[in-house]
């Protein structure tokens, strides 16, 4: 008997038992890339999970596994969760994309939701937030807060999600401060406090007085605090414990409404494979409180930018914009389409350095 037929048999048994006990609670699983206590990305996904538990009470049971490495281990964990009777599984990191597709193939009766990816299947939805809208607001504030005109950016992996964020932040920093320069360091990790701290220190040593991070821990905030005169922004979570300075604002991921809606869809039997990409307007991306360390006029214009992004009257990637090599990308009045944004693999004009391949 092959592995596949054993698994198929197990799935069959699982689905039979679900039918037999119709009032069994719906089981929702979550796979996390870091620890729940990272204070950032994974923390917010777990807040979403807790919101699901609170909303549905006894009708829903949730399970989660934290610190799951992206790769073969992830597949094993998802498999175990599906065999354990999960009806809906949220896989909450970009690197879980192929494992999710592989496992979903083996468990056609289990619904999967993959965060920040782009591969869909009949039982795999993808969802993400338009974090780049939040990055635009950060860039707007950062460009005016910097005195050295050097902004440090800690990237995780050179994937479209992160590149989009760098571009959005740069465009809006440049808009308010033509002399601004970005220094970008790739940490090649989502979560490694020692490395994130080291990267932040290096950027500070090289003159950056604003640090933007696309990694998940609060280590860069601690490094900025130790340096004394460096501005930071909370990433994924509010990180308010580092406010009012160095943390002057933040991007907050708010997954709870989405997780509740999708769980409801599974309960109702109306779940369909979808592609969701919501921003500030839908409430999936929140802008954390802009503290008093930011001058009042900067704060007001940042909030106006936030509101125009939310209402849709302004798009964070509005022409005229050129690519890094000087070739035209968006004409005056044109805005970027979602397809280009989803696969973004180029810097906009003005950014220096190459994107590692």
């Amino acid at each position, binding site marked *: 008997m092959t592995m596949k037929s054993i698994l198929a048999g197990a799935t069959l048994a699982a689905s039979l038992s679900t039918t037999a006990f119709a009032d069994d609670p719906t089981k929702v699983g979550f796979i996390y890339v870091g620890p729940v206590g*990272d204070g950032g990305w994974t*923390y917010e996904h777990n807040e979403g999970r807790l919101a699901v538990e609170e909303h549905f009470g006894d009708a829903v049971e949730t399970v989660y596994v934290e610190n799951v490495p992206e790769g073969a281990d992830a597949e094993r964990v998802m498999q175990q969760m599906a065999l354990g009777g999960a009806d809906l599984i949220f896989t909450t990191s970009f690197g879980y994309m192929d494992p999710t597709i592989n496992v979903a193939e083996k468990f056609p009766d289990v619904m999967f939701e993959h965060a920040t990816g782009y591969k869909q299947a009949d039982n795999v939805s993808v969802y993400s937030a338009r974090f780049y809208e939040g990055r635009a607001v950060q860039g707007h504030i950062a460009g005016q807060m910097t005195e050295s005109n050097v902004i440090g950016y800690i990237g995780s992996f050179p994937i479209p999600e992160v590149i989009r964020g760098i571009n959005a932040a740069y465009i809006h920093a440049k808009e308010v401060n033509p002399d601004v320069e970005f220094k*970008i360091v790739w940490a*090649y990790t989502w979560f490694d*406090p*020692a490395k994130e*701290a080291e990267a932040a220190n290096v950027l500070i040593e*090289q003159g950056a007085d604003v640090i933007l991070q696309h990694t998940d821990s609060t280590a860069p905030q601690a490094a900025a605090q130790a340096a004394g005169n460096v501005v930071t922004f909370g990433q994924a979570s509010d990180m308010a414990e580092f406010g009012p300075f160095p943390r002057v604002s933040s991007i907050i991921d708010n997954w709870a409404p989405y997780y509740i809606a999708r769980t409801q869809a599974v309960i109702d039997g109306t779940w369909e494979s979808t592609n969701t990409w919501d921003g500030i307007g839908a409430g999936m991306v929140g802008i954390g409180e802009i503290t008093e360390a930011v001058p009042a006029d900067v704060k007001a214009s940042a909030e106006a930018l936030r509101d125009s992004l939310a209402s849709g009257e302004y798009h964070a990637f509005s022409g005229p914009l050129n690519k890094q090599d000087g070739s035209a990308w968006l004409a005056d009045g044109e805005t970027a389409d979602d397809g280009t944004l989803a696969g973004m693999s180029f810097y906009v004009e003005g950014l220096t350095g190459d994107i*590692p391949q």
Partner: protein
Amino acid sequence: MMDLSAINPILLLASLMVAATPIILAAVGELVVERAGVLNLGVEGMMITGAVCGFIMAVNSGSPLLGFIGAAIGGAVLSLLFGFLTQFLLANQVATGLALTLFGLGLSALMGQNYIGIKAPEFPDWHIPLLGDIPVIGPIVFQHDPMVYVGLAIVVAVWAFLKFSRAGLILRAVGENHEAAHALGYHVVRVRMLAIMFGGACAGLGGAYLSLVRVPQWTEGMTAGAGWIALAIVVFASWKPMRLLLGAYLFGGVTVLQLNLQAAGMAIPVEYLSMSPYLATIAVLVIMRSGRAPGSLGQSFHASR
């Protein structure tokens, strides 16, 4: 666009000293253990246990100093487990050491569950009067936190102990030929147990340096392989304390330099930069095979044989 002038060599060298400190601490402990003829591959496990013990102690007492003491005790207690298994039950040292690493990673994750996301108490840098004011040298060498100097002091003390003291001579004799040392009337097992505990305490200090100074917060698995680098550096140093400093600074230097080059916009692939410290370690291990390992390294000893 490359702008190497953005790299400040003084700050680079200063952060090199900090980056090397956890490895120096862990490696000097392991060096003593190996000079006594014991191979303890559990450095990573003792480091991470020290990191969590030190963090818990420092947060609850509010004193980083007590934290470091707690870390040393935590590492030493864990190493006692290794000592008991290998010295009294004569378990295989390689297998026991590997098991100790896995055990330490799990144990620390368990102990640290309630300490995730908490800030460690401040551990300010020392600005050493007079010496710290010397141009160039001052900021590089004399403006660090006290543990940087503790690490260096331990290395010098170990060097002097092994080279000049009678106890150091006995320890080396036990490591070179435990049968002969036993025949001369020395307590092989007692000497080795003391060495193992010293190694555990030093590894614990190295781990706590990460959780209390470098990062500073507690995270599962935060040592991220530093213990294995420490083991490699002991071999690289051919079991000599002063060469160990060289190895640790080389490693710390490459780590810091690769981030600096990235920030300066150096157009070489980041993957190669990130792996360069490990490549350098391997290259050095292959090229510099000048040192000879202690004669009884890794062998079990029992007086009846």
